[in-house]
């Protein structure tokens, strides 16, 4: 919203104040100012000048050569305006002056020297009218500075509308002037209004049929309107504040909206007989005054003349009843409508207007009557011949309750943490229009109607009023004094950090984030489609943000695909949320998962797979001191390999799955590559207990190593062989290490190094051999034999 300081000065005396500093304080105390413009600063040496002769340019079909009397002399001027003619007084920019950032210099125009320029209102920056040069009143003396005739000089600042959402009172200049009054300590002047001089008993027929959505409707009928152009001062203010002059009646309604924040609507009086405020029973078509047709639903509040719709309440009037340039009779609407209803209707119709933007902030219904009186005053000042033809008809069906809040200095001190005197509290609240009944440090504060519609209802709200005017920059700042108590990291946080550290620092993976949805296009590239799952309300099958992912792989696989030219080998991981359909109560089953994807064009799938196993083992041993058990399982998702999909367990709990990729999906990603996936449920991981670290004093005697090279038949896994050397039976077996694995087409062999150690001496060769023989015997039962 644009605010004119000239307009503010109508209501508060700012003589001697530094305006720029004041606007800065407004930002810190009230609402954010986004920018300041200094209107008229680029207009120099522009005076009233009378055209005393006007001849056609000898070398042009539209230019004229003028002689202009500028008071201090007669100037030859070349001018192209169609309305340039002898006898009129216009705005004349002398050489050496400037207009709209352009310096005025003597120049030859098609061979004729021009000393100065006649200006349009657009050139002076006070309207967008560029039809012709200005025509001033005849009685203005030549040479009068244009800025003494019109208030061209002004400071305009723009307030961020978002910072006004909770302040319906700040949607007009008068409310903003109140803030300046409070900030400077100067009094706020009363708004000039006019009482209705009408003394008959005619009324405007007003019926509020829907009392939930219309709180108040105030109206008057005025006749004998003869003036149709608004005063220049009003036009300039409207233009500076982002509006534009249309005709006198429309301009006054707009002016009052910008001044009080109260939207008004003027109907052509010839079209209005009896006003009814109601919602339509069924869908209707309605053409607004901008010429657009709308379908109106039964939840939209409308204004009717008898049973014909004439306006969408709080949004826009209709085309048929619109006032025109020569309207002589009007029926005025100054009303208060339900803010939510107006907002929803405006959004439904795609018709957000200055009026609807104000109504949706929950306006003060007390304003409607003041606005009508202000309208009378402004119209009468412009057109003293008007005749009021009815009483001010005021139907007020829903009042907001009066709010009174008790507050005392001790409360304010405690909530602010600083010492603000009771006098200052009282003075601040009073200057903002609150009624304060005070006895010592105790106060009873009544909230003014314009702050009571939703803004202020409790003590904390009053503290804000006091402190923002006090100024947060003036606060003494203090730390708190509290008992010192430990705040340890949660296991959840520690695990997450440790896992990320291991993956990044040890396994050189890249952490990524992906969105929570499956993108059907991304999946289609890989020959996959989204799985049935919880989705967004109202989403379509094809939407990128429709179906939530059931697995992180639905996002990480497309990432690998997109990054396949990044490097020949890389790995990515994410700790993120997915949804495994719904729980028993029908709500979404949100899971926090770790997803890891390894990709390589250099390594074999087997070697990549073993890296993944190392990752899982590392994560469990470093965080839980636990061993992981693996069990092959049937694939759950289309991308998992039927033969190499494995669940991993610790303490009997299934924590996640490890798998290679289904060949059909793998070939879509890249030729001759290997991909391995790990997905682990972090909540399950957190819930698995951890073993205490067990310290074993190392023996001071050397270990005896014994290598066995074994031939392993097909189908025997390492964990099958491991059963042959149970550590419990072999306490002196300190370490078992795989030295070498050799696979040829017909045999699979493995070399294992067994280390034996005793605490008090070194084992003899015979003792070791005895133990090895036991192991070999057991291995033989599984058909594992020494390589010959």
């Amino acid at each position, binding site marked *: 919203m644009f605010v004119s300081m000239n307009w503010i000065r109508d209501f508060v005396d700012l003589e001697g104040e530094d305006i720029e500093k004041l606007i800065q304080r407004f930002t810190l105390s009230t609402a954010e100012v986004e920018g300041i413009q200094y209107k008229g600063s680029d207009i120099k040496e522009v005076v009233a000048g009378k055209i005393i002769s006007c001849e056609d340019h000898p070398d042009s079909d539209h230019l004229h050569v003028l002689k202009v009397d500028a008071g201090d002399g007669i100037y030859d001027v070349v001018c192209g305006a169609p309305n340039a003619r002898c006898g009129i007084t216009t705005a004349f920019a002398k050489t050496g002056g400037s207009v709209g950032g352009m310096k005025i210099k003597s120049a030859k125009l098609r061979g004729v020297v021009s000393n100065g320029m006649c200006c349009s209102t657009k050139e002076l920056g006070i309207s967008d009218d560029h039809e012709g040069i200005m025509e001033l009143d005849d009685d203005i003396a030549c040479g009068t500075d244009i800025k003494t005739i019109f208030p061209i000089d002004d400071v305009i600042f723009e307030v961020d509308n978002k910072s006004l959402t909770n302040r319906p009172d700040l949607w007009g200049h008068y409310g903003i002037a109140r803030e300046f009054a409070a900030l400077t300590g100067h009094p706020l002047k009363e708004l000039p209004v006019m009482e209705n001089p009408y003394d008959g008993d005619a009324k405007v027929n007003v019926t509020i049929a829907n009392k939930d959505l219309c709180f108040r409707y105030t109206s008057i009928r005025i006749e004998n309107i003869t003036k149709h152009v608004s005063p220049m001062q009003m036009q300039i203010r409207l233009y500076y504040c982002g509006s534009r002059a249309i005709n006198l009646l429309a301009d006054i309604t707009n002016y009052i909206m910008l001044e009080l924040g109260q939207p008004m609507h003027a109907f052509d009086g010839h079209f209005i007989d009896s006003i009814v405020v109601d919602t339509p029973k069924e869908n209707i078509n309605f053409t607004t005054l901008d010429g657009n047709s709308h379908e109106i639903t039964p939840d939209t509040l409308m204004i009717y003349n008898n049973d014909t719709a004439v306006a969408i309440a709080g949004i826009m009037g209709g085309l048929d009843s619109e006032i025109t340039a020569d309207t002589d009779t009007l029926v005025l609407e100054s009303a208060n409508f339900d803010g939510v209803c107006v907002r929803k209707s405006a959004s439904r119709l795609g018709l957000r207007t200055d009026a609807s933007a104000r109504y949706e902030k929950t306006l003060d219904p007390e304003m409607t009557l003041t606005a009508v009186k202000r309208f009378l005053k402004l119209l009468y000042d412009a057109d003293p011949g008007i005749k009021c033809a009815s009483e001010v008809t005021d139907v007020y069906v829903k009042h907001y309750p009066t709010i009174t809040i008790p507050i005392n200095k001790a409360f304010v001190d405690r909530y602010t943490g600083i010492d603000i005197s009771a006098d200052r509290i009282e003075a601040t609240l009073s200057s903002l229009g609150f009624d304060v009944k005070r006895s010592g440090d105790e106060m009873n504060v009544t909230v003014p109607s314009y702050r009571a519609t939703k803004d202020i209802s409790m003590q904390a709200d009053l503290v804000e009023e006091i402190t923002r005017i006090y100024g*947060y920059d003036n606060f003494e700042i203090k730390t708190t004094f509290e008992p010192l108590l430990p705040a340890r990291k949660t296991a959840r946080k520690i695990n997450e950090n440790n896992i990320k550290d291991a993956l990044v620092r040890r396994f050189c993976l890249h952490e990524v984030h992906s969105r929570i949805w499956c993108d059907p296009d991304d999946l289609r590239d890989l020959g996959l489609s989204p799985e049935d799952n919880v989705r967004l309300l109202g989403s379509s099958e094809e939407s990128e943000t429709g179906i939530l992912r059931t697995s992180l792989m639905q996002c990480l696989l497309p990432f690998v695909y997109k990054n396949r030219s990044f490097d020949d080998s890389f790995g990515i991981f994410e700790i993120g949320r997915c949804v495994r359909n719904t729980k028993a109560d029908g709500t979404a089953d949100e899971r926090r998962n770790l997803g890891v994807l390894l990709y390589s064009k250099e390594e074999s799938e087997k070697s990549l797979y073993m890296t993944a196993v190392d990752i899982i083992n590392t994560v469990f041993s470093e965080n839980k001191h636990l061993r992981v058990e693996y069990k092959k399982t049937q694939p759950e998702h289309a991308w998992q390999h039927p033969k190499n999909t494995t669940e991993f367990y610790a303490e009997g709990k299934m924590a996640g799955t490890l798998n290679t990729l289904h060949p059909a999906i793998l070939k879509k990603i890249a030729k001759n590559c290997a991909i391995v996936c790990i997905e682990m449920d972090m909540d399950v991981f957190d819930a698995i207990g951890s073993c205490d670290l067990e310290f074993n004093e190392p023996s001071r005697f050397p270990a005896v190593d014994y290598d066995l090279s074994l031939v392993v038949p097909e189908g025997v896994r390492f964990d099958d062989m491991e059963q042959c050397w149970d550590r419990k039976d072999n306490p002196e077996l300190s370490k078992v290490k795989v030295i070498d694995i050799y696979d040829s087409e017909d045999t699979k062999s493995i070399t294992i190094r067994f280390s034996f150690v005793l605490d008090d001496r070194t084992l003899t060769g015979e003792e070791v051999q005895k133990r090895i023989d036991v192991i070999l015997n057991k291995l033989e039962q599984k058909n594992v034999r020494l390589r010959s």
Partner: protein
Amino acid sequence: MKDRIKELKEKFSAQLGTVYDQKSLEELRLAFLSKKGHVSALMSELAKLPGDQKKEAGALINSFKQEISAHFDEKMEQIRKAEEERLINSAESYDESLPEERARGSYHPITLVQRELEDIFGSMGFDVEDYSEIVDDYHCFEALNIPPYHPARDMQDTYYLSTPNQLLKSHTSAAQNSIMHKYGPLLKEKGRPIRAVFPGRCFRNEDIDACHENTFFQMEGIMIDKNISISNLIYFMKTMLSEVFERDVTVRLRPGFFPFVEPGFELDIQCLICGGKGCSSCKDSGWLELCPCGMIHPNVLKYGGINSEEDPYEYTGFAFGLGLTRLAMMKYGVKDIRTFNEGDLNALSQFVSK
């Protein structure tokens, strides 16, 4: 005997002169000093000498033996040194400027920023909490004093789910109520103030471009105790932000409206790039809008089980929100917000670690 020794001496000197490596030196040593060597031969001859010459000849042989031993040692040291020098001189001087890049992992930039903040808050006694991404209407809106007709609750802005009464959380504030209920009993029974931060991922219905994302990270914090004041809030924010930016920052508060705080503020920091003079980063204002904050609204404290209906101001507190995604953009100069969620490793692999 004297002559024999002299002869051998000359022979030794001549041969030693031709020795340049350890192997031939060892051969020479064996020729003279082994059991079958020249010195041993002299010793066996000594036995044949008459008694009175024995002593003198023995002394001569011994001194000869010592003399050549010393020569051997000296020569040995020369050869060892020469060999060492040869090794050093023949060594390659390596070129560490060769581009050698083995695989290196990377953290997501949000993780880096989040960890840094968690460390700062942890050091100030804050608990770090985590919260779900799917929440219900009550926690996301009602418990935060956001009225039913508030625009934030429109479907155009918030992602509602097909499941009953669930949505993707639109702000981290959705965790406030649960955290108050979790730590409230400790506050009331043990006097342990509630100090918690809760980073999290939030979702808003936006079309994605370089400046807009539908998925972003925030970090929210609350502090609740008996007498928490606006003065404490300003002190804390200034201290915390100075720590975050690792320099003394100047802050200012402006009124800002959020239904869950009263009073509510927009906190600006003086632009760190121009120091407040005005530049393109701060749009010439000298200030950067950084984080909304405020005193927790009495209704929110009531819904959180902190205060009773009868004494709505028994405990007071403040809350603040930080845009983690925005902080990460500021910190690393990331210009396109899509970088965070689109998994391009050319971008993400640069965040090696800290």
